[in-house]
């Protein structure tokens, strides 16, 4: 096996397999996570995301293939892996009858962090997730968002090199989600490689450097969001135009680079061109006597990629 530290990968997965009876829950996947990046594992529920994560941590046995996490094999050296990797499970739980500090203290003892060191690390970690004021409150009074943040604090306290977050934003309100994503960015800034699994695409898109799209235990697509969009939606610059008093389809026919013009809703048009045609489009509409009310560059959305991909899958099947 190649040395991951040399290649800059913190996680290297080759041909990873998990069988439940005859079902292939994870079907021979290859995956590389680089140092300091945020990587998204996306896909519908039951696609094999959580199983993959549990195998990375050595919490479930593999049926085949190799995994290398920070130079350790989770099957043979799970303790070494778990010492260096922070894990935030889906809907993480803490001991309700204990305070936040006591919960983290227990984790610190399991990690064999010296007592004096631990207290400092606990308060610093709680500070970084803005929970310092509830450090001595019982976890039973915490909201879901606070529990997730406490989970992040645990990873910070652990000084993990890799953080694995399973559905970190599910069940959170928009504000709590925003805060949590900020904290995930904070982890990245601290040099932690972050692996996020999620089915909430628009949220994840905003933080992920690269994503892998899971489907039926296989990785269907992998790359940056733009790469995936080009692959699934086709290359091109989509632009949204809203204008009044002009036949847009007719007016834009002659603009160089425009490939398709499709009406979307009342007075709105979706234009796909092979280059950035916004200036030319604006000029043409105005010169044709139209009132231009909106001209927007459409970022490819992961949601669109996802929906389109699974639609096509269904057509094929």
């Amino acid at each position, binding site marked *: 096996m190649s040395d991951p530290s040399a290649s800059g990968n913190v996680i290297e997965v080759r041909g990873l397999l998990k069988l439940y009876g005859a079902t292939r829950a994870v079907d021979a996947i290859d995956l590389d996570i680089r140092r300091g990046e945020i990587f998204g594992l996306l896909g519908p529920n039951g696609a094999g995301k959580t199983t993959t994560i549990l195998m990375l941590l050595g919490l479930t046995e593999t049926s085949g293939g190799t995994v290398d996490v920070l130079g350790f094999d989770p099957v043979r050296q799970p303790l070494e892996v778990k010492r260096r990797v922070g894990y935030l499970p889906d809907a993480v739980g803490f001991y309700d009858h204990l305070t936040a500090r006591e919960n983290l203290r227990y984790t610190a*003892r399991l990690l064999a962090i010296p007592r004096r060191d631990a207290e400092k690390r606990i308060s610093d970690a709680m500070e970084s997730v803005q929970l310092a004021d509830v450090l001595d409150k019982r976890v039973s009074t915490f909201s879901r968002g606070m529990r997730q943040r406490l989970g992040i604090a645990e990873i910070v306290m652990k000084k993990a090199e890799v953080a694995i977050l399973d559905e970190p934003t599910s069940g959170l309100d928009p504000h709590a989600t925003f805060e949590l994503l900020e904290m995930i960015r904070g982890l990245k800034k601290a040099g932690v490689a972050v692996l996020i699994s999620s089915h909430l695409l628009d949220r994840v898109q905003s933080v992920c450097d690269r994503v892998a799209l899971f489907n039926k235990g296989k990785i269907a697509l992998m790359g940056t969001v733009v790469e995936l969009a080009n692959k699934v939606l086709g290359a091109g610059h989509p632009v949204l135009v809203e204008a009044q008093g002009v036949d847009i389809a007719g007016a834009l026919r002659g603009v160089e680079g425009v490939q398709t013009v499709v009406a979307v809703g009342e007075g709105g048009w979706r234009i796909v061109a092979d280059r950035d045609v916004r200036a030319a489009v604006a000029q043409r509409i105005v010169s044709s006597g139209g009132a231009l009310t909106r001209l927007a560059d459409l970022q490819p959305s992961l949601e669109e990629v996802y929906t389109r991909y699974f639609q096509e899958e269904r057509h094929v099947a």
Partner: protein
Amino acid sequence: MSRSAVRREGSAFTGLGPVFMKEFADHLSSARMMVLMLFVIAFGAFPVASSLQQLRTVTESDAFLFLRIFTSAPDSLPISFVFALNFIIPVMAIGLGFDAVNSEFNHRTLSRVLSQPIYRDALLLGKFLGGLATLAVALTALWLIVFGAGLLLLGLPPRGVEVARAGCFLVAAIAYGGVWLAASLLFSVIFRSTATSALCSLGLWLFFFLLWPMIAQAITLGLAPAQIRSAEEYLAIEQIGLVLARFSPGTLFSEAVVGLLNPETRTFGSMLPAQMRGVIPGAPLPLDQSLILIWPQMTGLIAGTIVVFAAAYVIFQREEVRA
């Protein structure tokens, strides 16, 4: 290469200390412990108080008067302290263990804890030892209370051998608790629902406590010939009955206790006239001879604990952590 052949690195006991300390602290500070202690005091104090009342009126000399506090069943209340312990201990042990693993699962703390550098071995063993330590503390406290009450009300210090016998009895009581703690831990691994696990543990205990003696008797009677012609035949049948009854941990505990606290006990079955030769009736055995007598019972209790715990361990290793 088969997966099971893969050797894992690092000690299986990494993290055992923190788990044990947390479980122990949790148990001692929990409301459940308070309820269990109230239960123990209610069921334990009454027989002790009544037997002390009666023992104060005893005038004939008794070398083991102090031990009678534990064993005598007063007329007013036909249960002795030891008999009360026979059901207090299982209920306590089950109360401490029935939700050990499944509550971690239901509160979704299991996967988070197991993602720390710790094997499942340490988690399960830490929980068992934490429960056992709690049980030991509670029983020792109870034992000391009984001893203190005896000192005060009888006005008679126990002899050294009595303290030693009572100490061995305490060890037997903890071992008996270990069996039921392991059993309730096993059910907490098997069932996700804490209610089901508690019900199964209590059901198993009731089965051994109420039903098994009757079943054992029925089987023995069924196996017995219509007419018993010789003493050997009678003994053989009795032996079968004893073996069957000893499947119940309660029987093992009772026999161990009788052997320890009634020093006159020489055997748990019948004695043949040949074996009685040279015996001074009613003479107490020395402590070491009593210990030899109850050694199989103690071994049985400890072995039972280990077997049940091993079963829980194997099932826990195979369980999926995901909810």
